[in-house]
């Protein structure tokens, strides 16, 4: 596993909308490299007959039937919202363009 560069960490932080100053970057970039290296050591354990997987369970095709189940009331749905209006979640002004 190649070392993760300072620029890559900066890019990742930007994507995650985390503001990091230069000192934090200097501090975190080497740490992230160590973490990645530690995880990569698993590859050394895996034998050739163990294919890579994204899931812990050896399952496929877990489906449910297309049957409606009761959902939340609007009141319940909005109960955790910091603010609501017109039975909708109120969110701060969106900067930038629509996705």
């Amino acid at each position: 596993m190649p070392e993760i560069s300072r620029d890559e960490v900066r890019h990742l932080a930007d994507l995650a909308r985390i503001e990091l100053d230069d000192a934090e970057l200097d501090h975190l970039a080497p740490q992230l490299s160590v973490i990645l290296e530690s995880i990569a050591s698993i590859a050394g354990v895996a034998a050739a007959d163990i294919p890579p997987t994204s899931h812990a369970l050896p399952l496929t095709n877990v489906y449910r039937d297309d049957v409606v189940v009761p959902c939340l009331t609007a009141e319940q749905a909005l109960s955790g919202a910091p603010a609501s209006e017109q039975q909708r979640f109120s969110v701060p002004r969106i900067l930038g363009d629509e996705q």
Partner: protein
Amino acid sequence: MTTTLMSYDDAIAAFDPAMGLEVHVELNTATKMFCGCPTEFGAEPNTQTCPTCLGLPGSLPVVNRKAVESAIRIGLALNCEIAAWCRFARKNYFYPDMPKNFQTSQYDEPIAFDGFLDVEVEGETFRVEIERAHMEEDTGKSLHVGGSTGRIQGADYSLVDYNRAGIPLIEIVTRPITGMGAKAPAVARAYVATLRDLLLGLGVSDVRMEQGSMRCDVNLSLAPSGSDKLGTRTETKNVNSLRSVERAARYEVSRQATLLSAGESILQETRHWHEDTGVTTSGREKSDADDYRYFPEPDLVPMAPPTEWVEELRAALPEPLRVQRARLQAVWGFTDLEMRDVVASDAVGLIEQTVTAGSSAQAARKWWVSELTRRANEDGIELAELPITPQQVARIQALVDEGSINDKLARQVFDGVLAGEGEPDGVVAARGLAVVSDDAALGEAVDRAIAANPDVAEKIRDGKVAAAGALIGAVMAQMRGQADAGRVRELILEKLAP
């Protein structure tokens, strides 16, 4: 932009368009993609949500089998390969239309890939290659408060309804389509129309563009004529009617040609289509922010559709559109040219329903393709959006067949129905449109016509029956077109028998 746009013809003479189309289709499953919330359109805000589609901690998604089935059927109908094994992925982005902060989608493992759809434009067939059809979920709907236009720009804050968040979507992506020349906008429209008809035939979606259950993004680039390199493309988002698909493509051809001809370059960006003004405007420039950090969705296990299931679905597919159209054409007795006009007017389904409602095919064609298509074009709307149903058209034709009205009066009945005056029979009564076939009333009108045209009457008495036309015309004029012309002719010939 201050410069005048290059005309479409000039633009096409200098450049070749290449186009890619991305169509999002909402499936008509009863429940959402990953939870059992209902999917009905138009429900009160936030009444169709649960912890899963609200992205609350601890909730777990489970895939809707019916949605997978629909996706496979769409893939098969588009001549695609069906993946033997594929996964969902998280598409991470910061936007409040998804409460989870990611959209569950498919990335490099679409459920269907490498297909094609043949579309016809003015008798020429274009094979549109399908790169992929993948499953994902729809997002919530935002209402932007403040500002003048209801758009994001200038809004103070936004209000979000998550009823739509999690509704199953299929995104169908074409490969770049080239070699269309001037027909590119028509190919775009024909592709979306053909795809819509195919989906309708499969019964997997309502495909109502005006309700947003089918949405189209148009990617377009230009290359200098004769060159085969692709230019920089723009992506015009959410073009939501067949007419707009064609207009937006046409506009982008002219706009890009104008810039390129002036030595400027095309910005790779998202653009917005404005239905009212018929232009696209600059949206978001492609940037690093488009790095969505896709990774396999850990909360969902992979899908591996068994071959037997896929083959079972393949065997149960409806007849292909091309076959269906050929069959309808034969049943209806339309010429190739007539059928082409029917398809171009997007009237196949409407005619089918009108015939089911009791009309002859030729009469249904006449009204939808000639009369109503003209009216829809005048109003700048789709034929199907006219406020008249196939049943009403069939009823108007039945009134013609019964002799209650003639074609001329039928046009006035169309006026009335389209103006919201009610059902055809009501319009006939309210507007006093029924033809007069009452002998007493017609007899008087005939007598008056004979008296006013003694020389014509004399000719008819001498056996020149052809002259009767002039008297029929005079009677129709008196009766303001509301006379039964056949009966008038009979009466004239009786009264002027030699």
